[in-house]
């Protein structure tokens, strides 16, 4: 059984102009030890997919129309709020894009980490290496030790001293590491990282990615890495899911998908990255823009921008077709059964 399995997830968002169908049948299975990159343009539903896993999408305005999100076989969407609180921050850790807004500026780093650790330990005292009968002060000092250990593991020098610093005393890269450490306190099985390195410089980004990679090796974490940087995916991820306008259009092993992309959208995305061979002024840019999801195209949502579009594309959403070992694509170009008909 995969650690996380998203089955046919449909999500609608209410807006002033009507209801937009923003997730349109997402299927994804993540096993322990896998790093899944979720890529796509702004507004294609990457973050909503990530947030849905810990059920952090406010509803209303969101409405789950159908589908389920199974975490260790249990449906997250049907769980009680009480159960969700036990999953979030413990079994499922989250790291967000902007390290400046996700730490409370008026509390010391140590204070914030100890709070999270104590809260996590309420259910699972073993996290702090204590029994249920431990006194308050024992728990606090154990939480502090854990905080130091985690800050140390993400490469913050003088971790014990830095616990007494405030967020503004850290640089952006350091804050992002503090957030990673925070997300790891509950020893999560699944880490959802939403653009964790977008705000960072390349050299710092490389360090943070390295830390994530080592954590996966060491603890057999499963990671869902949401990003729009294909370079990051190529370097770090084992698998990749390419999203377009609320659909996963191609997914599979990273080397397969990135070296032999099958879906026209994946091909276009990769071609748009300035590479060594590209002639200046002649980058292949994808014409047009993401469709308005209040009035999506009838069949394949990519068809209006697709260089290979044909009448069949409008006939209905294309199914996922296996094209190679561990590579699937949602495109009629690869649908051999329909060709024969």
């Amino acid at each position, binding site marked *: 059984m995969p650690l996380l399995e998203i089955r046919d997830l449909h999500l609608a968002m209410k807006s002033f102009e009507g209801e937009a169908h923003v997730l349109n049948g997402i299927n994804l299975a993540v096993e322990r030890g896998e790093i899944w990159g979720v890529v796509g343009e702004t507004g294609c539903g990457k973050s909503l997919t990530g947030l849905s896993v810990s059920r952090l999408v406010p509803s209303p305005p969101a409405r789950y129309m159908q589908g389920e999100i199974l975490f260790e076989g249990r449906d997250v969407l049907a769980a009680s709020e009480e159960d969700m609180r036990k999953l979030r921050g413990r079994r499922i850790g989250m790291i967000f894009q902007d390290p400046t807004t996700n730490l409370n500026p008026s509390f010391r780093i140590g204070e914030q980490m100890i709070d999270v650790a104590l809260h996590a330990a309420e259910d699972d005292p073993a996290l702090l290496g204590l029994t249920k009968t431990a006194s308050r002060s024992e728990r606090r000092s154990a939480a502090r030790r854990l905080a130091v250990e985690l800050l140390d593991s993400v490469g913050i020098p003088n971790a014990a001293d830095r616990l007494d610093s405030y967020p503004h005393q850290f640089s952006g890269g350091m804050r992002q590491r503090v957030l990673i450490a925070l997300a790891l306190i509950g020893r999560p099985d699944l880490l959802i990282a939403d653009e964790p390195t977008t705000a960072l410089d*390349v*050299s710092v980004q490389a360090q943070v990615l*390295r830390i994530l990679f080592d954590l996966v090796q060491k603890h057999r974490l499963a990671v869902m890495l949401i990003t729009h940087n294909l370079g990051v995916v190529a*370097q770090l991820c*084992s698998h990749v899911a390419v999203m377009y306008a609320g659909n996963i259009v191609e997914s599979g092993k990273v*080397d397969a998908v990135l070296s032999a992309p099958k879906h026209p959208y994946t091909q276009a995305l990769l071609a*748009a*990255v300035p590479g060594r061979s590209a002639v200046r002024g002649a*980058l292949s840019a994808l014409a047009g823009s993401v469709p308005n999801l209040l009035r999506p195209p009838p069949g394949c949502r990519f068809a209006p921008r697709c260089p290979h579009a044909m009448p069949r594309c409008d006939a209905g959403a294309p199914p996922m077709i296996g094209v190679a070992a561990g590579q699937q694509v949602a495109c009629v170009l690869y649908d051999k059964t329909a060709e024969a008909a």
Partner: protein
Amino acid sequence: MLLHVDNVVKIFASKRPFARAVEFAALKGVSLEITRGQSFGLVGESGSGKTTLARCILRLDDITSGRIIYDGQDLATLSPRALRALRSKIQIVFQDPYASLNPRMTIRDIVAEPLEIHHDLVGLSAQARTDRASELLALVGLRTEHLYRYPHEFSGGQRQRIGIARALALNPEFLILDEPTSALDVSVQAQVLNLLHELQQRLGLTYLFVSHDLGVIRHVCDRVALLYRGELVEENDTEAIFESPRTDYARTLIAAMPSPDPARSLWRAA
């Protein structure tokens, strides 16, 4: 040579009351030369002084010592009138197309605003300014019907085009591009980079391209300078820097650049 930056030092003094004056040197003696028609890349991490240098060239900040000479004129010695005239020749496109357009102004007003500010120089009537604005929109791939819309009606890529149209309004010679594509998706980035190249060919512009995206820099620039903590650590032709970097810092930076080729992953194969 169009722009000569000669040993420029910029020191920011701490403005905190009661605190002992703490000085921060954002630029520690930077020198570089940009020739006409060139695309010059300025690379560095955040805090390395890239934006400070761009602001000093526009004289939005005054330098502490050194000289910046544009087309034979020392920027520091210009009279206010001469400075205004010069500013019509040096324009800037900002990083964030969501923050750099006034949400309450129509596209026509945004694009025509420089013409209004420099009315003494260009002397166009209101009607002529509208015509010029629609001409500029056409130049960046937008249409006349977009003139009376507001920024929120446009996507990120279109907004960046509007920012470029505004920068081109006064027929500048020199364009400072401060991370013009870092807020955009790769597919849109490709459109904007192509547009910038086409404009350079057509209008003979000189670019100072500020970025921390080495892939983009390599693609657009003829020459690159690396800044590190206010110092220029390496400067060379683009391919020379990428193929045979001379300093450790350049090597580190290039190695850290994530390549979209999975076979070149630093760790996964191991």
